[in-house]
Structure formats: C-alpha cells, structure tokens
C-alpha cells in the first residue's frame, strides 16, 4: 500500500527530475528525505507497478518520426483476430478496445513520417477494414500531472 510519502513522491516527481551528478540526492532534498530513501521508494513503486517507469519521456515527432491515432470499426466476431493482426505490427504502440461503433483505437509510432501510411495501408490490406487515420493537428499541453 502507498503511504503519504509515496504519494508525495509521485505528485512531485512527475517531471523536473534534475540532470546533474547526484539527481536523486537533489530531488530527495526537495522532498525532505535522504537519497537512499528516495531510491528505495522508487524501487518499490516500480516493483509493485504503481509506477510504470521512472526516467525521460520522449516526444516521438520531435525525434523525426511519425505518430498517429487510428481507429477501426471491427465486427464483434472478428475482434480478437483483428486485434492480433494490428498488434503484430511493431509500430503499434498502444491498442485499446473502446465502447463505440469505432471500437478499436491504436497509436502508430514510426521512425519516419512516411512509414505511417505504409503501416496503415498494410493493416487495411490484412484486415480488409477501413482504418481512420487521425493525426494530431495540434497539442494543447500544459503539463501531464496526476494527483494521487
């Protein structure tokens, strides 16, 4: 179970982790705990899955790659087969079932922007279904932060 210190760590360390020789020591100072204590807490939070990762979060397009959100209306009886076909592409990073007529939503991340269109047409050819491609036009990003 998480305690107050775990919550404080999660709330305060969702960004701004320093780049310096002893970053855990510097972050620990702001939290009023020791470097060792912070490292142990993070280790436990990662081990029990409360944190999925601790480190840098990258912005795919800024690396020169392609990124899009795509969706398919999949007939119920074909849902699992189509999920398998879509997921078999290494470029598919996330895939979610959602309760809508458009019931399969996935993120495609590629090394080059052009590759997005190849992956999408491959998926259309394999599944025989239309893929709706919804690349972002703009991101309204203030600061991803979850209060726990």
């Amino acid at each position, binding site marked *: 179970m998480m305690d107050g210190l775990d919550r404080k*760590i*999660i709330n305060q*360390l*969702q*960004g*701004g*982790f320093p*780049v*310096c*020789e*002893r*970053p*855990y*020591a510097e972050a620990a100072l702001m939290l009023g705990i020791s*470097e060792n204590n912070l*490292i142990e807490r*993070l280790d436990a939070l990662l081990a*029990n*899955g*409360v*944190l*999925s*990762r*601790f*480190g*840098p*979060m*990258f*912005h795919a397009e*800024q*690396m*020169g790659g392609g990124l899009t*959100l795509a969706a398919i209306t999949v007939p119920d009886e074909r849902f699992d087969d189509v999920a398998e076909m879509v997921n078999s592409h*290494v470029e598919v*990073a*996330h*895939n*979610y*079932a*959602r309760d*809508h007529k*458009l019931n399969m*939503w*996935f*993120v495609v*991340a590629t*090394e080059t922007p052009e590759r997005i269109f190849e992956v999408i047409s491959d998926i259309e050819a394999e599944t025989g279904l239309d893929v*709706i491609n*919804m690349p*972002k*036009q*703009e*991101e*309204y*990003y203030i600061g*991803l*932060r*979850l*209060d*726990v």
Partner: protein
Amino acid sequence: MTDRKTIDETDRLIIKASQAGLALDPRPYHVLAEVLDLDVDDVMARFFRLLDMGVIRRIGAVPNHYRLGYHANGMSVWDVDDQDMSDAGNAVGALDFVSHCYHRSRHLPDWPYNLFAMVHGLDRAEVEDKVAVIEDLLGPRAKAHEILYSTRILKKTGLRLVA
C-alpha cells in the same frame, strides 16, 4: 554536436538506453555514460539539449493509472467550430484532470469530432463529472460530444525506437 533541430546517432543511443528508465543508482547519468562508453558531461549536455528541443518532454515518474485505482479511462471527443479550436483547446488542456488534449481531423460523415481530451477517474461517474466541467467550459463552442471508455487494453508497449 549537430544542428539544434536534429538528433544524431549518439542521441539515439542515449534515447534507446534510457527509454525503459533511468538506473536507480545515485549517479544514473554516469551509469548511462558507462554503458554507452561516453563522457558523462557529454551525456548530461545532450539531456539538456534534448529537453530544450522538446525531444524529452520531461524526466520523472510515470504513474500507472490503473494500478492507482483510476479504473475508468474516458476519451472525451468534441465537435468544436474550427475558429474556436485554439481557445477551446488551450482552455481544456489547462484543466489539471485532462491528461492529454489534441486537435485531430474530423472524418465526416462518420466522425464529426475534432477535439480529444483524455480523462481518468476512479469510476465512470467521476469521469462524467469531469466531462461535465469540460462541457461547461466549452459552452456553445462545442456542438456535440461523446465519451469513449476503454474496455480492454489490447497492447501497451509504449513508444520505442525500434531501429
């Protein structure tokens, strides 16, 4: 160093070696430098540059919403007049409970929605309360909206450089 707008092979090595996470070692950037046989000052300088370029959004803890009890994941989608999009998007993106907010293209006639705002909640009732806040905020700027709840995670590997 290459020009400020591109990343080079060394940057890519650093990204690949750190995308699963930083070492839980008192000197994580030194560990990275050692693994890659680079100078630690170069590694740290590249981190600053990648942050500055926006290639790294931020460095820190990535919480698992589901594991924290946020079992309801609602993608709220809105049909917003094009001329209002920028104001509407900035207003919705500024809400602290909206984790992602994007303007995406409509696909008429099937898909009239062009503003996407991701909302997490302990249950669907909480998501609906939060979506009601967005509805108030957008007012007449939004003609219609829906919430698409995720019912199953089919794949989640995160964004990875594969080459």
